């Protein structure tokens, strides 16, 4: 499924997105490193109308000095979805984008049908957790469980890196965000939280915090994946995500068949 590029105006920003597929809308908000298309996007676009936004200030978009908080960023992204003519949608957030997604669901719960959080960075360990940085090789060692299989990340323009780093530092907020966590306790949106068992950016043990806080949350550990689950185990990521979006809490009922010969 080929993704095509588009732009949408929202909150005074011109926001780039990639889109492919038909079906119910699935909006994806990227991590602190910016938009990266993965094989999982292709797999998900076989079932959903996948819209991958590049949030204002990331990638080649102009420096974003205006957005002051995660709440503002989530409002902007909600407006971008509206500008595409979409009222209700499934929402997926990766790492930093997981926190944006949680705020968007908390502020507009009637619009978000289900949340999928890939290695979300909304709750971080007491010891702190810095977003990955450094050379493409260093980044790969932080983000992937098996960098040797995937090679270095694509080189990033230092100007873009500096610009987005400043934006992320300004917006990411405290490691434990009491205001957000208060909101999550009352958020009934069906939520799937995914962590790779070998995540070296956010400890996978953080997954249990969402499960304990949110009333309708499922935690799934993806074996042998690091922080970038959808890059390292795209089939496993897309299968459980699709199943969850289709069946919500009933996704716990196995449909695997074991009949060998009739």
């Amino acid at each position: 499924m080929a993704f095509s590029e588009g732009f949408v105006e929202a909150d005074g920003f011109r926001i780039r997105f990639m889109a492919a597929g038909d079906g119910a809308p699935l909006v994806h908000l990227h991590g602190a490193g910016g938009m990266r298309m993965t094989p999982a996007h292709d797999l998900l676009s076989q079932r959903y109308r996948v819209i991958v936004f590049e949030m204002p200030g990331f990638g080649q978009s102009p420096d974003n000095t205006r957005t002051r908080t995660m709440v503002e960023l989530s409002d902007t992204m909600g407006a971008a979805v509206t500008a595409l003519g979409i009222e209700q949608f499934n929402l997926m957030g990766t790492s930093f984008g997981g926190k944006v997604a949680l705020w968007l669901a908390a502020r507009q719960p009637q619009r978000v049908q289900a949340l999928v959080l890939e290695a979300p960075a909304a709750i971080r360990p007491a010891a702190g957790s810095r977003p990955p940085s450094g050379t493409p090789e260093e980044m790969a060692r932080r983000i992937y469980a098996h960098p040797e299989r995937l090679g270095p990340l694509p080189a990033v323009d230092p100007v873009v890196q500096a610009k987005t780093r400043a934006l992320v530092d300004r917006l990411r907020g405290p490691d434990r965000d009491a205001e957000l966590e208060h909101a999550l306790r009352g958020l009934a949106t069906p939520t799937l939280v995914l962590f790779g068992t070998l995540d070296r950016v956010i400890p996978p043990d953080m997954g249990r915090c969402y499960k304990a806080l949110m009333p309708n949350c499922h935690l799934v550990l993806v074996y042998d994946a690091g922080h970038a689950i959808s890059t390292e185990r795209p089939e496993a990521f897309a299968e459980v995500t699709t199943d969850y979006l289709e069946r919500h809490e009933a996704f716990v009922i196995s449909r695997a068949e074991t009949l060998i010969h009739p």
Partner: protein
Amino acid sequence: MKVSYFETGRYVLPPDLAREWPVAPASYDPETGVEAFRNMVERVKFVEALGFDWVSVSEHHYSPRILTPSPVVSATWLAARVDTIKIALLGPIVPVSNPIRVAEELAMLDTLAPGRIVVGLLRGTTNEYLSYDLNPKESRERTDEGMELILKAWTEPQPFGWQGKHFQYRTVSIWPRPQHQPHPPTYALGTSAEAGEFAARNRLGLGVSYGTFELMAKATRHYRDQCAHYGWEPGPDDIIYRANMILGETDDAAEAALARRDGQAAFPVRPGLRDALLAADARNVAGERRPANVGGVLPISFCGGPDRVIEQLRRCREEIGAGVVDLSLHDPGAGDTDSMMHALELFGRKVLPRIREL
């Protein structure tokens, strides 16, 4: 040094039994089986009284050589009948098991017998994959993933799903949890680079078996290097060495017993099948490729009178770093139980008191 007695069930073989694995169930006598398990309990009470620290049980299939296909059943039965000795399950064969079932049963056992359960998790021997129809080529990956999942099922406080490569569960949430927190003392059993790395990364012990001191030292050195990489140092209790011992009143008596040993595998796998299994399974010691053991003869690592055996145990402690030895005082499957009981008694009297400080 701690000492463990490896209990194998000791089914008394009929004289005319065909020596081939798998062994036909037609040859099995139910009363002999009952007697074997009755004697198992008596032996374990005996080694407990002698002062052994652990009794170990294992998982083996389709032959009378080791009559314990379910280590959990063996361990539960024994734990209820002895008082102080620790029961080491060395251990469930992970790639043929349901890891959630293993986690649940071991947590239950750890709760039934608090503080007395020791766990070893292993890949198992190649021929026994036939028992549950496992593709040998998948055994490495299923072992690694299964062990990871067992540890996670024991320790994760919230219900979780597991999106694995070989295992998939949407909800894992075990009760009871282990009594010993975060989990009972656990060892990865194996000499491979993967076993050493897994044990080091998860702060587990390592159990090696049957190889020469030199070869096993290579495996434990790799393990210790990996532990250093993960920022910790294993203690003596973190390394188990399982081995066969022939103990006599004198060196000459032990040598004579060694000479009487027929040196044949108890129940060998047919040559064509053995070759196919060897081709299907890749093994290593600390990363160096080695052939799998497919129903072959296991060596005798310790042989002699008490003094010589103590010296060999000292070398084992120094070279392998093992603080726990898990011993068969006879080849598993050998019929002469009386001489083994004599050797056990001799070990308890003449050897055990003198190896505590090793």
